[in-house]
Structures are given as structure tokens and as C-alpha cells.
């Protein structure tokens, strides 16, 4: 007996050492993962957080009746077509009366975002008594000014490499020193779709696009996948044919997503003539892609339900369908929902298949229905990243933040639903 104990003791230290090594490796792995996570989140956050604020310049706006409503009829059509740009440029000229050269004036006029023309028009339309009066208003600055404002270190760069020349810089500084330049909340970010001007670009369009698309994906893939999984696992006879189907479903889950895009292009667009770039088509394509994931998760969850429950139900005289519906499915819901979360999260981040069906496009309108043209968040982020204008840099990072938040919320909802099911067990 002691001989054996001695032998065990000898091997014990070796085993404990390899155990410690293993634990150490695991710890290192986790630490690296956390480290990279922190780095990623930090870099995204630091780049993106500035996107949530915009630069505003305060100007004295004179609502010149001669420009807005020459005939004095207060006709809406007349007001709509008035030259509000002139009103803005007048204010700018008044601010810097010493600017006289045409070229310089042009530069000055670029300080204010072009979107303010429409804003002023709307303002006048709803407050017609403003006509003929002056008002101090904070107007959205253009992206270039916004960038300079957000990156003070740019002021020290040599003029030839800088975004703005020395003259523009001096105007900027003047505005600032006079207290007519401030940061405000970026109202456009959550209310507008894509735009050529960074200060006017927002994520609402792509958010809604993603939302509609994913909604379609969920509505299509979840019931079909669960039903297919139930059929294959519980009700179908076990023969070569069903084995063949199973192998194919497993392979489908590994197919590159762009293939589904090609399928969507060929059938949904070219044969069925569904609207291009619409969430409904995007949803259908993504549904095809998500189906195998959910089917596999469904089958695995169904398999995991202990046979004792099935036997109890069958022993009582329940049909197979009743057994599955009343007992097996509710118990396998947590697993099915996990698979659904995985599938939906993948779908949220997809851009390649949507490329094929045209959801990679410059969409300025906010989609209102499933058939309006739209784009999705990951695509929007990609588009912003590939644009040259400096102002889009922070928007890209902010877009990523929105995408991540979307993802976390979606997962959180699914986890909540799953917990509700798990409580019953």
C-alpha cells in the first residue's frame, strides 16, 4: 500500500504542475482577450464620442423681406423658393465686414452648413412674423469648422497641410473668442440618414434599415427554422434521405454569406422583381442565411431534452405532436433562443450578401416601410469609412458604437426572454 502511495506522490507533483500551467495559460488567454477588448472599446469610444456633438456658430440673422417675400403676399410657395442662402451669407458678411475679396467671401460663406438654409425656411414658414425682423440664432457649422474645433492640435500644423488656411483659422478664432462658437448636441446624428456633408449625416436611416431588415429576418427564419428542426428531429422517419438533408443543412451553415446574396439577386430581384435595396429583400436573404443556424440549434436543444419527459407524455397517451408541443419545445426554448441570438447577431453584422441585392448604396431618405430603399448599419459604417472627408472619421466610430449598442440591446432582449423560459424548468 505505501509503495503505491509513494508512486502516486511522485506523479502528483507533476500533475499539479501541469494543472497550474494549464490554469495559467487560460488566465493569460482571458487576460489578452480582455486587454484587446478594452483597447478596441477605448479606441472606438475615444474616436466616436466627439461625433455626438456639433459645432454651432451664433449669428444675427436678419429675415430680409426683400429676399423672403418680395411681393409681400406671404405665399407659402414664394417663401419656399426664397434664397435663404443669401440671408445666411448676409449675416456672415455683416459679422466680418472687412472681408471684401470674392474668393475670401466664398471661404467665409462655407462656414455654415448648407442644411441651415432649409432649417431657416421651415422656421420662417412656422413663424411668419419673423419676416422683417432680426434674431440671434445658433447655426450648424460646416464639417471643416467642426473638425478644427474638435481637434485643436490641427492649428499648429503648417498651413499647406492644414484643412483650413490661416485666414479661415483667424475667423474661427474670432468667433470663438467672441463667444459665438460653441459645442451643442449633434441633432442630425439620430435624425438623419446619409449625406455628402458629414455634419448632416446621421444613422437613423441605416438604423431603421437594419431594424426593418432584421425584423423580416426574424419573422421569416424563426418559425420556419423551428418547425423544420422539430420535423427533422421528432417527426421525420430516420432514413438515408433525412440523413442527407441533415448533412446539407450543416453544410449550409458554413456557406459564405455572399452566396446567399447571389441567390437573392438571381431569384428575388431578377425573377420575382422585388424592389432593389429594400429591407424586405435584405430580410429574405438574411433569413436564408440564418435558417441553418437556428435549425441546428433547434435540433441540438430538442436532442438535449431528457427522454423521460417524452416517455411520460407518450405513456399518458399524448400524440407525438402533443408531446413535442406541450413538453419538448418549451424545454428546448432556451437552447433555440440561444441559436436565434447567434443567428440574428450574425445577420446584424452582415454586409456582403446585402451588397448583391443593392443595399450598399447612398440612401439619403429615411426608410418608412419594408419596401423603401434602405441601407443597414454595417454597410453605412463601411461607406463612411471609405469616404475621404475628414469629418466622416468620427462618424464611422460613432456608427460602430451604435451598432454595438444595437447588438447588446438585441442580445439583452433575447437573454431576458430565454430566462423567462428557463424559470419554468
Amino acid at each position: 500500500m505505501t509503495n503505491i502511495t509513494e508512486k502516486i506522490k511522485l506523479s502528483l507533483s507533476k500533475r499539479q504542475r501541469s494543472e497550474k500551467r494549464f490554469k495559467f495559460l487560460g488566465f493569460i488567454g482571458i487576460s489578452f482577450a480582455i486587454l484587446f477588448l478594452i483597447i478596441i472599446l477605448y479606441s472606438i469610444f475615444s474616436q466616436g464620442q466627439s461625433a455626438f456633438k456639433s459645432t454651432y456658430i451664433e449669428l444675427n440673422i436678419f429675415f430680409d423681406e426683400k429676399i423672403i417675400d418680395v411681393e409681400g403676399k406671404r405665399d407659402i410657395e414664394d417663401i419656399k423658393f426664397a434664397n435663404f442662402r443669401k440671408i445666411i451669407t448676409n449675416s456672415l458678411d455683416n459679422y466680418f465686414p472687412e472681408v471684401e475679396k470674392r474668393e475670401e467671401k466664398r471661404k467665409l460663406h462655407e462656414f455654415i452648413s448648407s442644411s441651415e438654409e432649409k432649417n431657416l425656411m421651415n422656421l420662417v414658414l412656422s413663424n411668419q412674423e419673423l419676416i422683417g425682423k432680426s434674431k440671434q440664432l445658433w447655426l450648424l457649422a460646416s464639417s471643416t469648422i467642426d473638425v478644427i474645433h474638435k481637434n485643436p492640435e490641427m492649428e499648429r500644423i503648417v498651413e499647406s497641410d492644414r484643412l483650413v488656411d490661416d485666414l479661415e483659422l483667424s475667423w474661427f478664432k474670432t468667433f470663438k473668442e467672441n463667444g459665438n462658437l460653441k459645442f451643442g448636441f449633434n441633432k442630425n446624428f439620430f435624425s438623419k440618414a446619409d449625406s455628402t456633408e458629414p455634419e448632416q449625416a446621421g444613422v437613423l436611416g441605416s438604423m431603421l434599415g437594419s431594424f426593418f431588415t432584421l425584423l423580416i429576418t426574424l419573422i421569416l427564419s424563426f418559425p420556419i427554422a423551428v418547425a423544420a428542426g422539430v420535423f427533422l428531429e421528432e417527426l421525420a422517419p430516420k432514413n438515408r434521405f433525412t440523413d442527407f438533408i441533415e448533412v446539407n443543412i450543416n453544410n449550409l451553415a458554413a456557406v459564405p454569406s455572399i452566396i446567399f446574396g447571389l441567390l437573392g439577386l438571381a431569384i428575388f430581384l431578377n425573377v420575382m422583381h422585388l424592389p432593389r435595396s429594400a429591407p424586405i429583400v435584405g430580410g429574405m436573404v438574411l433569413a436564408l442565411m440564418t435558417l441553418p443556424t437556428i435549425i441546428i440549434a433547434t435540433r441540438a436543444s430538442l436532442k438535449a431534452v431528457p427522454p423521460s419527459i417524452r416517455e411520460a407524455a407518450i405513456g399518458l397517451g399524448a400524440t407525438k405532436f402533443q408531446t413535442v408541443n406541450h413538453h419538448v419545445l418549451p424545454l428546448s426554448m432556451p437552447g433555440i433562443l440561444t441559436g436565434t441570438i447567434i443567428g440574428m447577431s450574425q445577420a446584424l453584422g452582415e454586409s456582403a450578401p446585402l451588397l448583391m441585392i443593392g443595399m450598399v448604396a447612398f440612401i439619403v431618405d429615411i426608410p418608412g416601410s419594408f419596401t423603401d430603399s434602405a441601407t443597414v448599419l454595417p454597410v453605412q459604417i463601411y461607406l463612411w469609412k471609405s469616404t475621404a472627408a475628414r469629418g466622416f472619421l468620427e462618424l464611422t466610430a460613432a456608427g460602430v458604437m451604435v451598432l454595438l449598442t444595437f447588438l447588446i440591446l438585441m442580445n439583452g432582449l433575447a437573454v431576458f426572454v430565454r430566462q423567462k423560459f428557463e424559470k419554468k424548468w
Partner: protein
Amino acid sequence: MVTVTSNNIKIKSKKISVFYGDKKALDSINLEIPEKKVTSLIGPSGCGKSTFLRCLNRMNDTIDICRIEGEIFIDDKNIYEKNLDPVLLRARIGMVFQKPNPFPKSIFDNVAYGPKIHGIVNSEDELNDLVKDSLKKAGLYNEVKDRLNEPGTSLSGGQQQRLCIARAIAVSPEVILMDEPCSALDPIATAVIEELIDELAKNFTIVIVTHSMQQAARVSQQTAFFHMGNLIEVGKTEEIFSMPKQIKTQDYITGKIG
């Protein structure tokens, strides 16, 4: 093999053979189960007694590689007839399993499930009465009457098994099959279940598979001994355990190498 009671015969098996793929699990079993008595099936592991039990309510149908030859008559009707729906059969024959397996639902819902799916009751009140009655018959009502909405899985092992019995009798079966119902329970819970079996035998025909010879001797009136897929001996319980006719039977019950 003839039974030695003069009661009505509830179940009669005729040359029942069961194959799992190529392996023969039961060989031409002819056994009669008398009505409203307890019949116990004993034998070493793998002898086929559970397989035989599961033939009686066609539970073996759920196993794909299982093939059954022969006939089983319940009240003179062959249950392996082509047209007979096993779902209907299982409403007439209840089953209690080795490990208690209540549904992950409330105690009430567990017992109510059978009556609900078979449409036995017409109203909420009827259902309540039926559940109460079944729990009383299973000797569980007094212990759970204040917590019918708690999950069935929150009960102890012995209570869970009684819940499964209540669930089985709620659909008023004529026969109750029990597959080693006490093997997962402590001696006191076992004694409670044995007492219950005595009571139930007044109204139901009971067939029980058991590993405990003492239990078979205590609860049953007829005992059948299976060995390697064959029915070796069947007879009155007290005779089987005091003076069995076959050597194999004696060797098994006295614990000799058989």
C-alpha cells in the same frame, strides 16, 4: 404456462417475441395477467421483463429498431392489430417509470394533463375534482393540497413518484404498469408506495417489474420469472418464493449463480 387464479384474465400474451435489430430480447412469451390483481415480473438484468412490460402499452413502438411478433390481447382484443391506435391504448393503460418523471409544470397541471388532452372533462370544476380525487387516491393530496401550483419537481422523490401515479390514474386506466417504481426511493417512500399498490389493486390491474424479490413477495399475487428472454415459471407468489418448480427460478431467488 398457466396462471393459478380463477379470476378473469385481463391481458393475455400469445407467442410474443421482441427483436432489437438482430438481437432477440424475448422468445415466444405466453403469459396471462389476471384482472384486478398484482402480477410481478422478476428476473435478472437483461432478462426481458421490462421489454415485456413495455409491449403491453406498445411503448416499444417508439424505438425504431424494435420489432415485435405475436399478439397481445386485452379483454380479448389484439392490441397489435393494424388499425388499433396506440394513443388510445395508452389512455387505457397507464405507466409509472423507474425514475420519477413529473412534467416541469405545477402539481395541478401534471395531474390535469392527461384528462385535458383526452378531453375527459367538460368543465373547470370537473377538472378540479378529478385532480383532487386522483391525488387522494395516490395518497398525496394531504401533503400538497396547499401548494397545487408549485412545480412538480419541488417534491421529494417519493412524493414525485406518487404524483406520477396520480397522473397515471387521472385518466382512469384499466391497467397500471409499473417499471421498478421504487428503485430510486428510500425504504419509507417504498413502503408508502407498496401500501398504495395494495389499495390500487382493488380497482386496477397492476403489473409491476421489480428487482426486489421481497417486494414481489409482499405486493403481488402472481409472479412470473423471466430469464434470458424466456418465461421460465409463473405461478402464485407464495409458491414461487417458497417452493418454485424450476431450478432456474430457485437459483435466482436464492441468489445462486444461475
